[in-house]
């Protein structure tokens, strides 16, 4: 059975609540069957709105959403067969864990024996066997969360939507839940649309990530591509750490360009969005791509003064004053070779032009 690569399709979807501001603009998004796709973006960028439209609690102002090639705008929410984990869990407080999980099965008129089996299975999936008769109020936050996940999955929906499901958990619980959700996804092959603020979470869990800003998908790609090859300066800034130089293109070829920085010096960079001479640009460079005292010959080579040294255990973060950028960050592995990293020292920093991406100036 071949997988449908357009299992969920947002087709030119616009959404406005008040008729004045578009909170989702011209959204085109294809999600293939069994995929784990994450929506990542700052607060208010329209992620929840997208989920709500998919689940049927908001209607698109324009455009259409397709589920398995059927337009779903005219199907009421309870017929869509989409499981949802709400940001605030939304467990039914007057029902036990068992009844919460049995609810979607009961409304589907599943027989009592099958309900018991499925609830058992779902609870063991989130390792909560034995909690059947507790009320949600008697569970810890993490346990409630897991019940919510189990409830969204227990009726074998085709798609599961999770809206910041781990937002309220502590770091350890969060990590173990991330692992559990990922594991569940892999073992039952459900399509997951996941929303989070935590980019680490997004990077580790997803097949693909859609970065939202301002109601638009800024970039949709796999986690590694997103990190290594951001297509615009918003994504570069939003995902991971990032050193920025503002300047102007003075020379451009197919895969290289010369950028004159505002303080005067020129650097070589990889032209991504810039097209012609004279364009303003922001050059973005990941901290780990710049090396100190490199033996290799690299295209960019500059001296910087160490402003701050922060010890991080396995590595040391160094803040430099380099080419007029007082917040240039370097990550230096902690090994004996790097003993000269001292406050106030001048050191050599070098990087390849390929890693310095010349992006839009914003």
């Amino acid at each position, binding site marked *: 059975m071949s997988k449908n690569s357009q299992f969920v399709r947002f087709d030119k979807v616009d959404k406005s609540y008040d008729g004045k501001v578009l909170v989702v603009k011209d959204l085109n998004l294809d999600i293939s069957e069994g995929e784990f796709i994450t929506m990542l973006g700052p607060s208010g960028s329209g992620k929840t709105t997208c989920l709500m439209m998919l*689940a*049927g*609690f908001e209607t698109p102002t324009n455009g259409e959403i397709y589920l398995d090639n059927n337009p779903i705008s005219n199907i*009421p*929410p*309870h*017929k*869509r*067969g*989409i*499981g*949802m984990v*709400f*940001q*605030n869990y*939304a*467990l*039914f*407080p*007057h029902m036990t864990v068992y009844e919460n999980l049995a*609810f*979607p099965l009961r*409304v*589907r008129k599943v027989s009592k024996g099958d309900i018991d089996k499925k609830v058992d299975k779902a609870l063991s999936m989130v390792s909560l066997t034995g909690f059947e008769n507790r009320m949600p109020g008697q569970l810890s936050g993490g346990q409630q969360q897991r019940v919510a996940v189990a*409830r*969204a999955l227990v*009726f074998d929906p085709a798609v599961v939507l999770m809206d910041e499901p781990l937002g309220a958990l502590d770091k350890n619980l969060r990590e173990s839940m991330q692992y559990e959700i990922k594991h569940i996804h892999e073992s039952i092959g459900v399509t997951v649309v996941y929303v989070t603020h935590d980019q680490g979470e997004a990077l580790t869990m997803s097949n693909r990530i859609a970065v939202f800003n301002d109601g638009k998908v800024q970039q949709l790609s796999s986690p590694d591509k997103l990190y290594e090859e951001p297509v615009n300066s918003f994504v570069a800034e939003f995902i991971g750490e990032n050193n920025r130089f503002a300047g102007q293109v003075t020379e451009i070829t197919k895969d290289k360009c010369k950028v004159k920085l505002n303080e005067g010096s020129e650097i070589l960079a990889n032209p991504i969005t810039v097209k012609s001479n004279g364009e303003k640009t922001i050059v973005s460079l990941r901290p780990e791509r710049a090396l100190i005292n490199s033996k290799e010959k690299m295209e960019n080579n500059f001296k910087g003064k160490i402003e701050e040294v922060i010890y991080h255990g396995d590595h040391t973060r160094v803040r430099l004053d380099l080419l007029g950028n007082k917040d240039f960050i370097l990550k230096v592995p902690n090994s004996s070779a790097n003993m000269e990293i001292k406050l106030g020292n001048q050191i050599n920093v070098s990087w390849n032009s390929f890693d310095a991406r010349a992006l839009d100036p914003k």
Partner: protein
Amino acid sequence: MSSEIQKILTTDGIPLEESLRKAEKKNKLKAFLLVCPLLLFLIITYVFPIGDMLFRSVDDRMVTNMLPKTYKAMENWDGKDLPDENVFEAFYLDYKKLVEEKTFGKLATQLNYEKNGFKSILKKLKRKMKKFEEGDYKEQIMSVHKRWANVEYWRALKRRAPAYSYSKYLKGIDMYEDENGKIVQVPEDRRVHKILWVRTVEVAFFVTVLCFLMAYPIAHLLATLPMKYSNLLMICVLLPFWTSLLVRTASWMILLQQQGIVNDFFVWIGLVSDDNRPEMMYNKTGTYVAMTQILLPFMVLPLYSVMKTISPSLMRAGKSLGGTPFIAFWKIYFPLTIPGIGAGCLLVFILAIGYYITPALVGGASGTLISNQIAFHMKSTLDWSFASAMGLMLLAGVLAIYWVYNKLVGVDNIKLG
């Protein structure tokens, strides 16, 4: 076991418990002083009056004290035949004293409650008594009026002997203790109170149901509407609180009377003919309509406060899990509102069961309630002890309802806001 555990000492060597008690004593005193005014207020305005009411309702010493000799003499009277001469003599002496003190009127009123016809024969006795000669009072009294020779009247007199009695309570439910001390119902044509009790409960029940049916959607709307609309709606709901009860009741009278606006409208749309206008005022209909409107806010507010706390995502979760809107409402939303329903119904029912002004104004003869009867006895017949007894019965009824409610729903489940 605990005695074996060593006493924990503070650093000064005082046992911990003792030092804790000392430290808390001051706090407790402070707390007590703070609640003192309220406590005093409650005692003065609530505990005393109810205690006094309870006392009044069983207090029957007035007659007892008026006829001390009579009752003393009656002690060895078996009540079968007419009493002996010494009873008559004692009664004569007692009554003479009352006449001298000019308090015999009260006795006449009281005895007339017990048995009709006492008043006139007592009056007659007073007139004739002046010419009484010493000795053989039995003959002389019996010759004043033939009723004095009727043993029924003497039995009635004896029934008022105890200083305390529960006869007022019996009267409240149309019963009385007959000559043989058996508790029986009063004759059919005089059973007024039972009808009133039943009607009171019935009106309170249906007003509660009507209020609930109307308040539920309103409260839901209030809880879900955007702020600016819900505030406006809230003002509409609270508006009745800001106008005087009398004004509101009067406006219902204007609306519902036979020549009123509602009837005019019915005639205009052709629902009823002009010469056959329905009576909607001065009967039960009037009571229902006016009381429902007046008590509606008491249902809306608890419901609203509960609904406000129900997250809309619960209904959404219900729907996304496959429940139709109706199932989501019935299985999720409705059970969560039960605390509010309980509070609202209890509140409205209890208020309705003791309602007074509205039924008095719009209820007419067939729409008055037990509280109107209580007021009638307090203001017109001045039979305060009977009014107290009925008031207490009402109170007991309310407490009973509260108890049943507690058993069924649980008072902890009530949410007033």
